């Protein structure tokens, strides 16, 4: 049975060609998800190739009062791309060009659909790299990274995405194409680049990104330290940083995760250990061995029962494997997991991890911890089986308590994954209404109609989704999916 083609689809097809406009339910389904447990199906998915086309798409969307939701690779973990108001989803699969690598200025100009790792791969022959390295870097897009201000293991030393973006081309909600920022320092006027980074697609569509690139460090040393207790491991983290040593990365995985990783990949970690730390330092060759030794000594001093040091690139990759395969391996333990992303001051890690244990007991859930420990960024993965009645509700309650715990010790509810839909309810833990109003002022100055990724970032009443949906014209049948 053929569905009638709506006028909006027809207009978009004229603009982009029929191949680049998806509207049949079967084609839309894969666009209903991100990496979180949220889902909703867009009415139309478009695959533009240029900023100009995006400008036209926005104008069409406005004419039909349809929401616009930009989508990168869909690896996000907060429901930021979940189109709860339906509408037109813009995907960037055809915007994957690296326009320019400029070694003299140490910049690269890329399209939003470029995969994070592909930037560093393209730079490697020149002995340069792009520093922000989300663990999802083989899949996630630079556009998504910018919109989420993503982090990654090496952000401990190099800083998050915001520190590596110099300029943006954006399409505003009125269709205007604007260039913000640039290669010269001290751009005049308000820092609009800063405003767009981390704005989760609510202020404009990002169509080009000027990133800062860096020369590859001359030497890298990687060590893995095994601990009997997670407390020893977390004390080591704050001990190292407190002593004024900033490694490139300090990552932690806990005993539950170790056992999952071992079951899945058998990489030789002791099953009775309660935590391992993965520490990496990089920099000039001179002095790097001393630094490595000092860190190894530190680990032992804080109770490590074993410290492994990578002797070559292969061994380095092996040590990282435990960390990089962690999330995938958790599938061994339970069919679903709910990942949280709170941040706490590093010195509070031992306390917070102990409290988190208590929360797990209270809700009778299992938590597997994977941490960007050097930054105090927790990723507790609460394991569950969605088929079990009431499980997801219980898990969400436990997650909420963990976030409250993070805020209570002076931290935040999200270090890198974003607010999206997931964290909307928790924003008031962190901000008073007046603070949220001030943020809304920023949004409304730039994107007052809220047609761009509506209902994300700022809490605006639980009816947001329905309200936005009710504006949709009848010609586009509403989908009946629920989002959980």
């Amino acid at each position, binding site marked *: 049975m053929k569905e009638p083609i709506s006028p909006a689809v027809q207009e978009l097809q004229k603009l982009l060609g029929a191949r680049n406009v998806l509207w049949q339910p079967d084609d839309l389904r894969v666009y209903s998800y991100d990496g979180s447990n949220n889902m909703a199906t867009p009415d139309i998915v478009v695959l533009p190739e240029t900023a100009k086309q995006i400008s036209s798409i926005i104008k069409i969307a406005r004419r039909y009062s349809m929401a616009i939701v930009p989508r990168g690779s869909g690896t996000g973990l907060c429901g930021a791309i979940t189109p709860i108001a339906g509408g037109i989803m813009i995907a960037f699969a055809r915007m994957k060009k690296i326009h320019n690598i400029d070694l003299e200025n140490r910049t690269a100009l890329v399209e939003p659909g470029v995969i994070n790792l592909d930037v560093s791969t393209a730079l490697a022959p020149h002995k340069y790299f792009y520093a922000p390295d989300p663990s999802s870097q083989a899949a996630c897009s630079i556009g998504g990274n910018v919109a989420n201000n993503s982090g990654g293991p090496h952000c401990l030393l190099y800083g998050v995405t915001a520190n590596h973006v110099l300029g943006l081309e954006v399409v505003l909600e009125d269709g205007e194409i604007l260039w913000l920022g640039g290669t010269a320092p001290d751009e005049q006027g308000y820092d609009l680049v800063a405003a767009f980074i981390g704005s989760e697609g609510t202020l404009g569509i990002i169509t080009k990104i000027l990133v800062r690139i860096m020369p590859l460090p001359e030497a890298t040393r990687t060590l893995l330290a095994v601990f009997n207790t997670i407390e020893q491991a977390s004390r080591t983290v704050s001990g190292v940083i407190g002593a004024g040593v900033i490694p490139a990365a300090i990552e932690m995985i806990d005993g539950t995760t170790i056992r999952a990783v071992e079951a899945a990949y058998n990489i030789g970690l002791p099953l009775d250990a309660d935590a391992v730390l993965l520490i990496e330092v990089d920099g000039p060759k001179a002095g790097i061995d001393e630094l490595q030794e000092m860190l190894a000594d530190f680990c032992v001093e804080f109770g490590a029962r074993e410290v492994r040091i990578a002797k070559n690139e292969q061994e380095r990759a092996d040590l990282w494997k435990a960390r990089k395969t962690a999330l995938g391996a958790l599938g061994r333990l339970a069919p679903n997991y709910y990942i949280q992303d709170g941040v706490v001051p590093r010195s509070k890690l031992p306390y917070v991890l102990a409290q988190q244990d208590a929360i797990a007991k209270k809700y009778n859930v299992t938590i597997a911890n994977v941490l960007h420990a050097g930054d105090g960024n927790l990723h507790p993965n609460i394991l569950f089986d969605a088929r079990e009645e009431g499980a997801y509700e219980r898990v969400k309650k436990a997650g909420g308590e963990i976030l409250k715990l993070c805020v209570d010790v002076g931290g935040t509810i999200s270090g890198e994954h974003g607010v999206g839909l997931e964290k909307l309810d928790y924003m008031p833990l962190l901000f008073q209404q007046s603070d949220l109003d*001030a943020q809304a002022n920023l949004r409304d100055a730039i994107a007052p109609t809220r047609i761009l990724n509506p209902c994300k970032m700022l809490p605006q009443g639980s009816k947001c989704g329905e309200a936005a949906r009710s504006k949709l014209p009848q010609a586009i049948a509403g989908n009946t999916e629920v989002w959980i």
Partner: protein
Amino acid sequence: MPLTFALDGISPQRIYTPPDANELAQVLAQCNAEKCAVVPWGGGTLQHLGNAPSQYNAVLQTTNLNQVIEYAYDDLTATFGAGMTLAEIERVLSEHGQFLPLDVPHPERATIGGVLATGMNGALRLRYGPARDYMLGNRFATVDGQLIKAGSKVVKNVAGYELHKVQVGAFGTLGILTEATFKLFPKPPAEISMWASFDELSDACAAVGQIWNLSTPPLAIELLDTATMKFVEPNARGAYFVLARFGGSKATMAAARDFFSNAANEKNARSVNVIDDTQKFWRAIADLPATLREHFSDALLVRVSVPPKELPSALRVLMDFPSPPRIFSHAAVASIYASFQDAYASPETFVAQLRARVHELHGHIIVEHAASTLKKNLNAWNDVGASFKLMQALKRKFDPNNILNPGRFVGGI
């Protein structure tokens, strides 16, 4: 000399020095109700920046917001009241071997609030980035008397819009900063600083490129001419000077020393020197923008920003003027200060010409200082182009009555 708070010949009728942030917000709300134009005032060291205010009724001092609000030294984070001076901050942090890499002029008077509001940076920006990269959050007073919290106090946070960063470099036109939280840095265990002299500008520029690419990345690279080097190392001989600062382990520093010498010599350096009193040396460099302004108060001081690879071309443009300026530059960042002594017959034409030349290099200039008789005819800022409408929209949202520093920022904001 008593403070008059005069700006471009205008003096305020009222002077407020509220005891704390809450009262500061109250005063601001009151001013807003009366449509009384306010100039926020920290240490006054950067008030020469920007255009003359279009209206100026009251000065609002942050002097009393001078407390350390929180210092978690084992977490390397701290929160300071906006009125704290950079010297005081440095004193507090150095007790724990930590620092904030903001090496700007007059730290004994410059306040953290003022430095953030003006977006000022110094030489260390090369390694540590601009302040917004390591500022984690802040609080600011709005015209309706609220104290708004933005960002967080931990080193990573993506909850909400980055409103705290938009305040940096906004010249107090969107609100008045009352406190700010930073990620701090441990002082490097060892440091070495060196300089080399060159006869030719092209050699000096080439050396900058070479040193920027060293496997031991420098914390700072500066390029000075004879006139500016006088204030730093009075006995130095040469036409141009390249200065670099390195930090790291002892072993790394020994390597850096050799690297620097080789790089400089390869580019025909006349002499290569290790600096003994690094503290004094880098203080003098950090002070240079103020030194130039104060010593040559009748000269025109502009800051030129270009993409890093255009540094040689930009310096050439400057040096090719009939009476070349005194210059110094955060070289690898490509931010250049140029002080033109000549009382040009028509400074408007001169600045327009310079703007156009620098624009061709994809850069821009800000007029930092001019003799007061000339300044009123000069626009300190470039035309910011199409994004201006967004800036106006922001301004309308946060300051609808236009009472915060009116007229001083880009496009008359």
